């Protein structure tokens, strides 16, 4: 069992978490009615009595973009000066050609489809997101841009925090145990690049296991054990396989 300092409770919409005065770190999921704090989604509420902090980790929900989020998107449409990108949010994102190409474009001379076509996958960051407009992406930055190799795994966006782990512990475990490169995007798409097919399968299975068991404590240890067992099964390392 993981030892937790703050108190954690499973809450459902309409349920009062605590009474009094607290700081809310996840304002989208907690509202204050009278003196009570009420949860608005199914999730794990964390109450820290010492620092009077209150937060809620949702267990269900769609991806809501935030500025600076790393996302993996699929190009859905090629426009005259921009692309429309699906980032699994309720809103379609826009990637401007000026940003992607790093120079002004002349729509009369060139076709953006030559650079990114429908169905292409990109790794990008959310640059701007305002309520009255859809999110705008940028590919300026290290490692950002078109993805040309690797596999994308999709999980529920609310489980992303588990795949990263506390201070990146789970992410380090996944990369360290398998030698794969794992890029976790905030919108629940995970890019894995592996030296071989067996390791890729193991990483994907481990990620899906994390998604399924995200709310059960002791996850890091179970995943570590799982990866080792799968490696033994596939003959990648020596050892005895326990039969399930």
């Amino acid at each position, binding site marked *: 069992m993981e030892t937790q300092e703050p108190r954690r409770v499973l809450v459902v*919409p309409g349920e009062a978490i605590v009474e009094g005065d607290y700081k809310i770190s996840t304002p989208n999921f907690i509202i204050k009615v009278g003196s009570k704090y009420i949860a*608005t*989604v199914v999730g794990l509420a964390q109450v820290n009595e010492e620092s009077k902090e209150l937060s809620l980790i949702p*267990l269900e929900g769609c991806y809501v973009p935030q500025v600076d989020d790393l996302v993996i998107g699929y190009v859905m449409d090629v426009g005259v000066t921009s692309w429309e990108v699906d980032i699994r949010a309720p809103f379609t994102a826009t990637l401007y050609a000026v940003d992607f190409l790093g120079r002004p474009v002349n729509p009369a001379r060139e076709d953006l489809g030559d650079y990114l076509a429908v169905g292409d996958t990109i790794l990008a960051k959310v640059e701007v997101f305002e309520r*009255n407009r859809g999110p705008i992406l940028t590919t300026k930055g290290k490692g950002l841009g078109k993805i040309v190799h690797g596999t994308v795994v999709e999980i529920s966006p609310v489980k992303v925090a588990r795949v990263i782990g506390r201070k990146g512990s789970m992410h380090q475990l996944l990369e360290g145990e398998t030698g794969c490169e794992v890029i976790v995007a905030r919108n629940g798409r995970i890019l894995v690049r592996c030296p071989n097919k067996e390791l890729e399968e193991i990483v994907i299975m481990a990620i899906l296991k994390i998604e399924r068991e995200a709310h059960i404590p002791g996850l890091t240890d179970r995943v570590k054990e799982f990866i080792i067992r799968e490696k033994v099964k596939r003959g990648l390392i020596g050892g005895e396989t326990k039969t399930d």
Partner: protein
Amino acid sequence: MEKPRLIREDGLRHDGRRPNELRPIKISVGVLNKASGSALVEYGATKILAAVHGPREIPLRHLLLPDRAIIRCRYHMLTFSTHERKSPAPSRREIELSKVIRESLEPVVMTEMFPRTAIDIFIEVINADGGTRTASVTAASLALADAGIPMRDIVVGVAVGKVNNVLVLDIDEVEDMFGEADMPVAVAPSLGMITLLQLNGVLTRDEFVEALKLALEGANQIYRLAREALRNSYLKVRVEE
């Protein structure tokens, strides 16, 4: 169909329930995997399946609102849900119930979080035995919660009726057909909010007050079950060994 004895000599109802007793209620959440959220709710023989999609962008841009999400709701009865085949085309009644159910959910859903999008609720009546609109409200709000759409509270529905001059909770089809009054109520118990109140038939002022009290008691019972069902859908997932 002949009129049965609605209240027996021993004071119980035609199906053996006490006047203030609910039918057996079964709730399961997250029963479908393609929809963002879903719920299956049974009030006795009444069986309702609700599914939620979204929030999502829709092609019908003119419908969207700049400051909040719109909720679209479709209540539909399956052809085999009634004694005689129900035409699958939406009837006047179904269109009206869709609107009524949507309006009972709108006050609790935090639509302002998703401007320019649509949240779609699909409700299918699998078996109809009275109280389909109230069971639909319960199912729809649980499906919304399962989809992770922020809500101020879960809304539950329950009907109160008057049969043979007795106020009874959670009426079924027979009691609805031969009774004197039918009052469906939808409540958001934690907020103390009534989001749907209809009355078909005649109640005196005193009876109305009494009936509402009965409905709130019933709603609280269903609310407890609904919260339990929502929680159980997570506690059920066990660690694989």
